[in-house]
């Protein structure tokens, strides 16, 4: 039996001949990073239509909706990375085309490494919307509203004119 053990030992020693595949320093570059890899979320506030689907399907309630002072598309998602399980269902259910408003595929993997984290705000994926964007959207809405009002006024004026015209005709008929 001792001879058997020695034979196994020699065969194990053959493993010294294989080179290890651990050639990269994974602190700085990943070994395998495919395009469908579910990494850190990228949230595109311009494409988002504010439908709330991602919030409703998230199994662990990691998504909070941030309110914007706009009329339509008034919520965008924000993700809490310490709760998220990276299942990707929010990306599946997002209805926007051609690019999804919330995307995990191809995201980065080194989200929280390095340095010290002094408070919880490091663990959120926030959406930084510049004030200029909000102002431009508010202007658009204002312009749309004004346009609608004018159109409504015009229609009302036309309807009144028509009524006056009809009212004028009737007395004519009555006269005759």
């Amino acid at each position: 039996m001792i001879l058997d053990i020695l034979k196994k030992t020699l065969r194990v020693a053959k493993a010294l001949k294989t080179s290890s595949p651990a050639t990269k320093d994974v602190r700085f570059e990943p070994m395998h990073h495919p395009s469908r890899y579910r990494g850190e979320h990228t949230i595109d506030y311009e494409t988002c239509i504010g439908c709330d689907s991602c919030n409703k399907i998230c199994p662990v309630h990691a998504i909070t909706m941030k309110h914007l002072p706009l009329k339509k598309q008034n919520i965008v998602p924000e993700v809490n990375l310490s709760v998220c399980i990276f299942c990707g269902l929010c990306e599946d259910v997002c209805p926007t085309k051609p690019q999804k408003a919330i995307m995990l595929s191809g995201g980065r993997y080194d989200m929280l490494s390095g340095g010290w984290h002094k408070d919880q705000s490091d663990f959120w994926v926030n959406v930084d919307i510049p004030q200029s964007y909000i102002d431009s959207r508010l202007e658009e809405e204002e312009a749309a509203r004004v346009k609608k009002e004018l159109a409504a006024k015009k229609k009302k004026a036309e309807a009144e004119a028509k009524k006056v015209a009809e009212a004028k005709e009737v007395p004519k008929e009555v006269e005759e």
Partner: protein
Amino acid sequence: MSEALFQAFIFPGLLYVLVWTVGLFWFFRKFMAALHKRVGPSFNGKGGSYQTLFDLSKLLTKESITPDGVNPYLFSTMPLLAVIFAMLPSAFIPWMDGVVVVDSDYGVLALVILIGIEPFLLFLTGFGSNNKYSFLGGIRILTQSISMETSFILAALSPALLFSTMNLTAIVEQSSWFSFLVLLPGFIIYFIALLGLLEQPPFNIPDAEQEIVYGFYTEYSGTNYFLLQVAMFAEFMAVFAGAATLFLGAYKGIFFDSYFFFFMKMMGIAVVMMTMRAATPRITLAQMLNFSWQYMVPIALVNIAWVLFAKSLWFIGA
């Protein structure tokens, strides 16, 4: 006076043992990793060479927790005693031609006894911790060392029988290729008993992580643990040096004698031990006792008969 201080603290004393510990630990890790198809330590220093230095010095800065209810003398003083006893055998070994600290006429006996007393000290550490797992580990190491030491002593005595002297320098001077062949069975028995004495696979029963957590090391942390690790590696050094001196002819090499060959011989035994560690699981206590008393001890006795027979044929007058 200064020579005694040099020998006690630099070579072959404290500093030598520490450098040996750090270096051998790193070598073990890299070699095991290569056998496992992995890489091992690689971030600190070139090829991870600073890693064990950092690890061992980290242990020195950690808190040494002494649990409630332990026996204060046994728990805290045993690691120190273990280190001292493990470093003693290296005083008897002829490291280079003419360099030996204590050139005594009973070198073999001193070597064997000092190596053999070590497991008893480790049992006392297990006995002193207030923990059922440590106690089980202590009992296991006592059982194992009593069985393995019998064949170890019988095998270690065969060169002394062959050359009719217990003086280690005399044994080294008289050894040659032919005497190595005659002593080969004794060397094999010594190697297997060495595995049992140092708790290496397939005999790593007292250190069975999966069964009794960590044996008698369980309750130790910080400086105490560092001392026990140094004791373990010092014991490795004593046993390997003993094998090289008794059977392989210490510093004798091809074309010239030097410490380099001694080192190479010790590393050769270490490499074979490591490869066996990667290839065989451990056996149970009952099976180990069976193997030791039914096979090892009778074969060791037969080996002594063979050595006496060979001596009467070829080594008359030695």
